């Protein structure tokens, strides 16, 4: 019997469990998945909670509903991975030996990384929207807010879903407009990046949209601390930005177990081969999704594209072949831009988001880097696909490798 252990039952881990459950011969393979939490969160939905578009119910389901029948599931915290011994120590005392390991332990926000962030104003006038608790607390705060300086700040890159902070300011503009108080709210987007987004073309187009929506942009701001007494964020070079309500995207880090296992970089992300998805230095460990150190976006669509590549390379490796499939860094993101419209971007390691059309047989085409109603429907449709196809490891109508069809250079 060969043993495959999957660590983490979030988006990526659940997809891999479903895929291998239907592919691997059960008389030869024992598959085990480990996670400490019972609830699966549709994380892209957190963004909509503060604006009362989604409720908590829309983004939560029991993880077990997405495991195939008869799966070997262990609910426990992971104490340590011992790659040299091919085993994982669990906090419940169990020791799991493996022939192959897939690490899908994800990333999470860590407000403690910034001085004064997780202090007296936390979840009072300073909120995150990367946890369900933060998103719900912010919804309740916004309901009674009289307006003032709304600052959205990214602490440092990389973060999960790099477009989410932009979507947040777009949706805030729409929300306060619809409530008839936009003139009382100054929206200010403060980022460590040199522009509105990571890549030049998208950055310039999205920057123009910010401008059009009267959202102030401050770039190259690297936060050093939060001044709780004076309601200010202060950068390492002593630039100050005042806020009445601060929406922070705190430092994102890999799980602590990666640090305990000595397998991560400074942010606990695992050095991973950007094409094969194998952990660097190991012949029997794959890494997928937010847990990797890859220069691709940390997002569910990316994990989905990776899952197809990982599956093929896994099948190569267990048969003694070299991994033959290469991940190209493909990401496909619907950016909600408010007032029932959205923007679509599609890119990979080598090709930045470009304008043009995105063909999708039977449904599309969608417009790239342009605000349309169609793109908004794409975003709404994605939640249905997420729960009903993606998590179950089924094929989606979008190819794993990026295509240039329809894109304008």
């Amino acid at each position, binding site marked *: 019997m060969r043993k495959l252990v999957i660590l983490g039952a979030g988006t990526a881990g659940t997809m891999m469990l479903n895929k291998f459950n239907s592919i691997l011969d059960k008389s030869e393979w024992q598959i085990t998945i480990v996670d400490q939490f019972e609830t699966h969160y549709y994380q892209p939905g957190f963004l909509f909670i503060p604006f009362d578009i989604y409720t908590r119910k829309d983004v939560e389901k029991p993880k077990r509903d997405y495991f195939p029948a008869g799966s070997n599931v262990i609910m426990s915290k992971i104490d340590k991975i011992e790659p040299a011994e091919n085993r994982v120590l669990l906090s419940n005392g169990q020791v799991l030996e493996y022939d192959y390991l897939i690490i899908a332990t994800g990333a999470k926000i860590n407000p403690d990384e910034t001085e004064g962030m997780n202090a007296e104003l936390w979840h009072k006038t300073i909120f995150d929207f990367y946890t369900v608790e933060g998103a719900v607390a912010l919804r309740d705060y916004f309901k009674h807010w009289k307006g003032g300086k709304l600052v959205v700040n990214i602490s440092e*890159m*990389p973060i999960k879903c790099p477009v989410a902070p932009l979507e947040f300011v777009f949706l805030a503009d729409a929300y306060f407009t619809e409530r008839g108080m936009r003139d009382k709210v100054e929206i200010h987007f403060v980022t460590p990046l040199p522009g509105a987004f990571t890549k030049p073309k998208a950055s310039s187009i999205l920057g123009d949209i910010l401008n059009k929506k009267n959202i102030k942009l401050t770039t*190259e701001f*690297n936060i*050093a601390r939060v001044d709780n007494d004076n309601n200010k964020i202060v950068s*390492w*070079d002593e630039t100050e930005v005042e806020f009445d309500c601060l929406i922070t995207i705190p430092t994102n880090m890999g799980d602590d177990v990666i640090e305990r296992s000595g397998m991560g970089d400074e942010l606990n992300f695992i050095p991973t081969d950007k094409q094969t998805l194998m952990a660097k230095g190991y012949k029997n460990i794959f890494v997928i999704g937010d847990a990797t150190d890859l*220069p691709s976006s940390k997002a569910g669509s990316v994990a989905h594209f990776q899952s197809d590549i990982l599956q093929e390379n896994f099948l190569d490796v267990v048969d003694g072949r070299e991994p033959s499939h290469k991940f190209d860094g493909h990401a496909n993101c619907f950016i909600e831009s408010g007032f029932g419209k959205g923007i679509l971007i599609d890119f990979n390691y080598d090709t930045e988001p470009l304008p043009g059309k995105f063909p999708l047989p039977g449904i599309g085409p969608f417009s790239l880097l342009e605000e349309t109603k169609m793109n908004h429907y794409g975003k709404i449709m994605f939640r249905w696909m997420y729960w009903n196809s993606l998590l179950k490891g089924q094929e989606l109508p979008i190819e794993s490798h990026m295509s240039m069809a329809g894109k304008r250079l």
Partner: protein
Amino acid sequence: MATVELAGKSLEVDADGNLANRADWDKEVAQAIAKEEGIEELNERHWLVIDFMRNVFEEKGDAPSIRKLTKESGVDTKELYALFPKGPAKKAARIAGLPKPKGCI
């Protein structure tokens, strides 16, 4: 690939404006790039960071992130921003003749 004039030499640079060939780098070139980045004169502390970056690159094949610099170079975050205003990891990598750190997406 674009070519730029640095320290009296014509050198190839990549899409980010960083040196394309590490062999083209020397201390005069570093000083010339530093000037472009608004650093008039590289001092001892700058060099400590630059040398650290080059050593890490030699070993790992990627320029270190700001966090690694803070943790291991012996220069804290505050000083790094004072030495290389706005983006220490990005600026120091460019001056050190290295490609932009992978973490700076």
